[in-house]
Structures are given as C-alpha cells and as structure tokens.
C-alpha cells in the first residue's frame, strides 16, 4: 500500500461516521444522504495568447466536458490571464469577445476557393489548398523575381508577393517564418502582432 501524508487529509463517505463531526456529537447522516442527489461536472482552464494584436495578452480558456468520446466538450468562457504580466487579467473589448470569435457561425473552418469568374465559394482539401498556393507563388516568383537591379547590382528579390505572419506565434515559429520567406527572396514580410 502506498501511504502518503496526503491520505491523512482524506474526507470520504466511509470516514465521516468516525470523524470529529460524529465524535463531537453531530450526525453526518443527513449530509451523507444528500450527497447521493449531487452530481459532479468537470471543466478545464487552459492558457493561451490572444491572437488579435501586438500586445499578445494572456488568456485563460475554460472548457467543459471530460475529453471522453461521448461527452460534448465546449469552450464556456474566456477571460484575461491574471498571472500574465502583460495584461494582469484584463482584456480589451475585442479580446473580451474572443469566445464569440471562436464559436462564430461565420468562422472559416476549412480552405475555400472562389474560382475566377465564379460567385460561389467552394470547399477544398488542405492538400489541394497547399498545391494551389504553391503554384500561385511559383508562377508569380518566376514572373517577377529580380536577380539584378537596373544598375547591375545583384539583389535576388521578389517584391510582388507579401507575407503576413501570426501574432500568436512563439519565437521559434517566428524564426522559421523569416528563414523560409527570406530564402524565397520575399522582401515584404509583416506580422499581425504589429497591427
């Protein structure tokens, strides 16, 4: 048996009859009967970073449900993270509405494309989306990549496409983003965190 100090603090149904409650002359029976009518609910609190602006406020996301297959998990509340030194538990009105953004009926949940001349958006797979983006990027880069400027100076730049990076990205993702984009010669790079 694994005996820890913690077991001394245990409060359980079988224990109340011999506890100080009973020994001091009070009956725990009504409390024990009442427990049978109660049910537990489960929630989690998860830290995250607000995706909106450069302040990058910490948020606590409250979710209900127990992660089991049959249970319905749902984000029930989002508030400022009191432990975060940046915002100390506060949020701006936009940040305070984060839950509505997460659960918005209009939220984009998969890649969509509107073909040239079409009026409807069409759902496509992620692989299809990546292929299309890569093809567009390559075509544009092949057409507009500049090896030398008009004075004959080597510049190797691609100025006709820009890249906008995420504000919630950590340092490592930021590093990889710059390495990838600069390797292609792209000069216009910005991040949502600056907007």
């Amino acid at each position, binding site marked *: 048996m694994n005996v*820890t100090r*913690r077991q001394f603090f245990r409060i359980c149904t079988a224990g109340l009859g*011999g506890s100080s409650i009973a020994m001091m002359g009070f009956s725990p029976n009504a*409390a024990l009967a009442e*427990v049978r009518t109660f049910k537990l609910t489960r929630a989690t609190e998860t830290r995250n970073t607000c995706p909106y602006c450069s302040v990058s406020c910490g948020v606590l996301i409250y979710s209900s449900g127990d992660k089991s297959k049959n249970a319905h998990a749902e984000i029930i509340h989002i508030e400022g993270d009191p432990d975060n030194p940046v915002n100390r538990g*506060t949020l701006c009105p936009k940040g305070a509405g984060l839950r509505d953004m997460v659960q918005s009926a209009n939220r984009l949940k998969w890649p969509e494309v509107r073909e040239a001349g079409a009026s409807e958006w069409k759902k496509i797979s992620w692989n299809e989306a990546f292929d299309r983006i890569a093809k567009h990027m390559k075509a544009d880069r092949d057409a507009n990549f500049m090896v030398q400027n008009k004075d004959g100076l080597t510049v190797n730049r691609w100025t006709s496409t820009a890249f906008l990076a995420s504000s919630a990205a950590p340092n490592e993702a930021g590093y990889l983003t710059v390495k990838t984009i600069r390797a292609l010669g792209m000069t216009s790079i910005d991040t949502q965190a600056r907007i």
Partner: protein
Amino acid sequence: MTPTQTIEIHPSTEVPPVIQLPQPGRIFADRHARFAALSQQHSLSDWLAYLGRLTQAQHDIALTLDTLAPPPPDAVERARQHGMPPLAALSYPRPANWTDIARRLAEKMAKGAPEAMHAPLAALGAMTVTELDAIADALLDGRIDPDALPETTIVAAALQTIWTALAARLDVKTLAIPDPSELCPCCGSLPVASILKTSAQINNLRYLHCSLCNTEWNVPRATCTACNTDRDVNYRQIDGDDGSVRAECCDHCKSYLKIMAQEKNPGVDPVADDLATLALDLLVDEAGYSRSGPNLLLLGGAG
C-alpha cells in the same frame, strides 16, 4: 457606497503582493460571520454553527494576543537565508502560555456544547502541559489519536489562533518566496484551500491559504499546487451550484484542493466554505483523488 468613494475602472498599476500576512483582528470574526451564514440552511447546520462559535472564541482570544513576543529578528533572517519558514509549525517553540490559551478556548466552548463534548472539554481543562504538547505534536505531525478527535480539534483551534497572531507580527519583506510553493512561507504548513482574490490591487489571482497561520501566498492559476504540473489539471464542481467553490484536481498526482472564487461570492472563507462543501470532497474522493491539504477543524475523515 458613499458618493465620495472613487470607482476603480483601470487595473491597478501597483504590483500585487506575493505574500499576505493574516489580520488577527478580523480573520476569525469574518470567519465566524461566514460560519453563521452557512449554517442557516445546511445538512450539517449544528456542526457548522458550533465551529462558528469556536471561531468567535478564537477571535476573542486573538484580540488578547498582541503582547505575544514576535520571533527574534536574527532567527527570521537565518530562516530567510536558508529559504525556511521562520515559524515552522513543528520546531518553533510554542509560547509559554499556549496551554493556558488552549484551556481558555476549551472553557469558552463548554456553554451550549453537545453532550459528546462535555467530557473532552473537561479533560482539556485538567491536562498537563506535557499532555497538551503531545496532542499538538501529534496533530502537526499527522499522527492524530483517533480517540481524541474533539480534544485535538480544540488544540488545533488554539494553535491556529497563536500562529495567526505570530505570523501577523512578521515583516513580509523578511520572508522568502516559498519553495516548494505548496508550503506556507511563514510556518511551512500545507494550505487548506486556494482562493481567487479580487481587490483594488488583485484581479483574480490565486492565493493559497495556510491551514495553520492563515497567511496567503500567490501561486499561478491552472497549475497543480501539489506537483506543480500545468497539464492534466481539471476543475470539478457540484452540478448547478454557483461555482464559488470548485475542486482543482490533478490527473498527474491524483490530488485535489478546493479553489474558491471571491468574484463568484465575495464572502467565501477558505476554512468555513471548505467545511460547508463536504459533499464536493466526498464526490471527488469517489472519483479517485485525495486531498493535498488539511482543514484542522475536521479531523479523521478518512475513516
């Protein structure tokens, strides 16, 4: 609210305190009021009311303890240098008159006490210093005598009163930040519960509340206070209640401690509300978690 009172709209620019020492002049009085409110309609109403009277007695005695000698400054400094609590519950010498305090508390609890308390209270009054010290040592060392639970409860209340008065005499600047964060920076005891505090300076930060000396210290939220992990932590509450008292359960170390939210109910008290929500303990225990800190006013609940 009086018309001259300003309303705080912006968060305070002051850094919230890491450690908050107890205020012996009001902590037990507030707790007494909370016990009185909670015992109005409760399945353990008589017990809660009696414990409310015990906290009233603690308050009366706490008011007389401002003459208690504070711990010597060199001992406090030595403790700080070594990252130790200056009022370590088991090793700090109990004040010479502590047994008188325990006997006075027993005396105050005699009137209107239930039949079962008469013998233990009389026994306490007649005990020698050695016998009372033995009960206190057993309590603080987790070796409580199952045949002396009522006596030990009164001794626990006496020690709480004395240690609260001692902790209040400390200067918060002389205290080391507790490491591990689970233990009280003043007396090294385990916490009774967490409380999410709201005030002009504090915006829903979590403080652990010491089970012995009522000191509070800040620990990040959404973290297990027993094993420090921030994964596998979940919150249980009784379906349909106001959410002011939840159990913070850890699937990594399988422990739990209750966490109370002043935002949900400004009156919550870490000791009184803990005892008024025993149903949560029973259900969380059945779900396989064990409690990581004691409430000294309820002993022997493990059977």
